[in-house]
């Protein structure tokens, strides 16, 4: 496969009804994505509750850049590139922690947790400002929306709120207010799966209202067997919708679909009886039912292009590693200081479906691997995203560009339109 170099070549890989397989398989396309997408727009980093106090940090990749996300001494959250300005060694080796400074252990250059260079052993430079000049590289834009921290390597992007847009923010708010509006925090642990496949398989799949009944059939069967009642949710129900928004964002809205099938699943959790009793004791009879509903969330999926998804009760971050390798992190939200049984039920509910050994998510990864194995052998070079193309519309969109049926590929078309747009901007830089 040869690398597309001109912007026309990138846009030629995406049509409104499909995506060329090179988009998933060509290492040159992946290289271009790391520059043109991950260094060209807002990228989700973490939740503020993961670094609650001054000095708290976590490390993560942003595209190919190793980044330290840190709450600096002045309380500002900064995204510093984890690379000594001298010879490019990492200055922080840990996944998370608390530090006043970061030191390169090669030659001892030391940076304060705001990125400034504060120590250089045996200095030999005469120029006065070299310390200012050689602080850690910082992502020029870091902004949060209600605890969700995003960063941009490009400084001339619109504000985060404008980038997200009112239509998407409505659903982000609904997601974050799922515990009756009581504040939620990110759990200190996440499930992280090292998957075989291009990162965009997960990007597409998190907003795919078409696959659940097939890919997750075994999950529904197990629930059906346990509960002896209908456990299907959302898919094929007429009021549920798939919605696309500006900048490649998208939503699956369950509409008026009852969340009762989600609540029903709670009776299958380990020690369910004990947890139900404990919850009733903690919150009282009157509040019990509403707490129980809040355990499982509203059943909405929000996709913020390119790497964030808010699904059910977790925050999902997609980390591209290589053209055929991706780390997917799913981090449940809990109510810090809230009823213990409520939080435990949320964790048990999350474990039921998600993580490397969950009853649902692994089957998604299996499908991505099957695509990986099939994609090169196919005589057809295009993957189809045409479902619902002729029936999606803008009626009652509330900020949405298009609204389709829940199983329509409306979200994916928006994702790839944004993908092509950013790839072209980058190529034209």
């Amino acid at each position, binding site marked *: 496969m040869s690398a597309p170099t001109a912007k026309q070549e990138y846009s030629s890989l995406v049509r409104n009804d499909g995506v060329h397989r090179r988009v998933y398989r060509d290492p040159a396309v992946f290289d271009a994505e790391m520059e043109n997408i991950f260094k060209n727009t807002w990228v989700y980093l973490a939740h503020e509750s993961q670094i609650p106090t001054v000095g708290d940090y976590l490390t993560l990749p942003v595209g190919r850049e190793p980044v330290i996300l840190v709450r600096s001494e002045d309380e500002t959250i900064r995204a510093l590139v984890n690379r000594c300005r001298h010879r490019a060694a990492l200055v922080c080796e840990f996944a998370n922690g608390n530090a006043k400074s970061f030191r390169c252990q090669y030659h001892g250059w030391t940076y304060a947790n705001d990125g400034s260079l504060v120590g250089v052993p045996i200095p030999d430079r005469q120029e006065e400002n070299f310390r200012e000049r050689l602080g850690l590289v910082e992502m020029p834009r870091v902004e949060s929306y209600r605890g969700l921290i995003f960063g941009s390597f490009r400084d001339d992007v619109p504000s985060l709120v404008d980038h997200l847009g009112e239509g998407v923010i409505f659903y982000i708010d609904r997601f974050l207010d799922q515990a009756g509006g009581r504040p939620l925090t990110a759990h200190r642990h996440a499930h992280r799966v090292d998957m075989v496949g291009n990162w965009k398989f997960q990007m597409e799949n998190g907003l795919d209202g078409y696959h659940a009944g097939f890919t997750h059939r075994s999950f529904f069967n*197990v629930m059906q067997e346990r509960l002896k009642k209908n456990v299907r949710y959302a898919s094929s129900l007429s009021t549920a919708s798939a919605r696309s928004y500006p900048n490649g964002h998208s939503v699956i809205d369950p509409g008026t679909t009852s969340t009762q099938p989600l609540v029903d699943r709670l009776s299958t959790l380990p020690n369910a009886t004990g947890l139900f009793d404990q919850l009733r004791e903690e919150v009282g009879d009157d509040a019990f039912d509403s707490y129980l509903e809040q355990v499982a969330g509203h059943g909405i999926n929000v996709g913020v292009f390119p790497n964030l998804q808010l699904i059910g009760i977790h925050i999902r971050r997609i980390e591209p590693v290589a053209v055929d390798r991706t780390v997917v992190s799913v981090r449940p939200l809990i109510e810090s200081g809230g009823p213990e049984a409520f939080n*435990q039920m949320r964790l048990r509910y999350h474990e039921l479906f998600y993580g*490397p050994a969950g*009853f649902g998510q692994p*089957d998604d990864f299996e499908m991505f691997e099957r695509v990986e194995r099939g994609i090169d052998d196919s005589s057809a070079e295009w993957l189809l995203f045409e479902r619902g193309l002729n029936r999606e519309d803008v009626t009652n969109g509330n900020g949405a560009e298009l609204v389709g049926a829940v199983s329509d590929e409306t979200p994916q078309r928006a994702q790839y339109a944004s993908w092509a747009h950013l790839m072209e901007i980058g190529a034209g830089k």
Partner: protein
Amino acid sequence: MSGAALDTAPGMGAPGMDGEAGVLASASELIYREADLIDRGHSREWLELFAEHCVYWLPIDPSSDDPTTGLNILYDDHGRLADRVSRLTSGFSFTQEPASKVCHVISNLRLLDAAEAASAIGAFDLAEGDIAVGGHGVVAHSRMGVTQVLYARFGWILTRSVHGLRIGVKRVDLLNSADPLPVLTFLL
């Protein structure tokens, strides 16, 4: 295991063995049988080795002593364990269609006293006659032309039932439990 608990376990030792050696021999026999059932794909028979009130647990945090308080890779009671096996054998658990070939190499087995069990396995009540065992293991699994190897510390609390010795708690601490992991839908 301290002497007091062992003394209440008459007849559990292998023939000709007394005391701790006999207890370890019977525990090992169950532990190796368990690994063999997994490796041969006999998940329903494997499930039968578990006590009615059991815990099957893969923590993320190796220092955790209680599966209920944090997020786990896997935390099953008997109900969820039965669901796991039922899903696995349904024909629609696609990560196991075709199934992984699995090979357990279990080693370094030793009896743990109550304090060691609390530290290595967690804050579980030890009933009289329970046997706590620690060990190390290497688990290889192979599927679709890819073989992966996992390393882990294992802990078991074996308990007596009318059916004989059963698994009350099985804990598996993967060496890389806090790192991004491959799909782990086969039994460990």
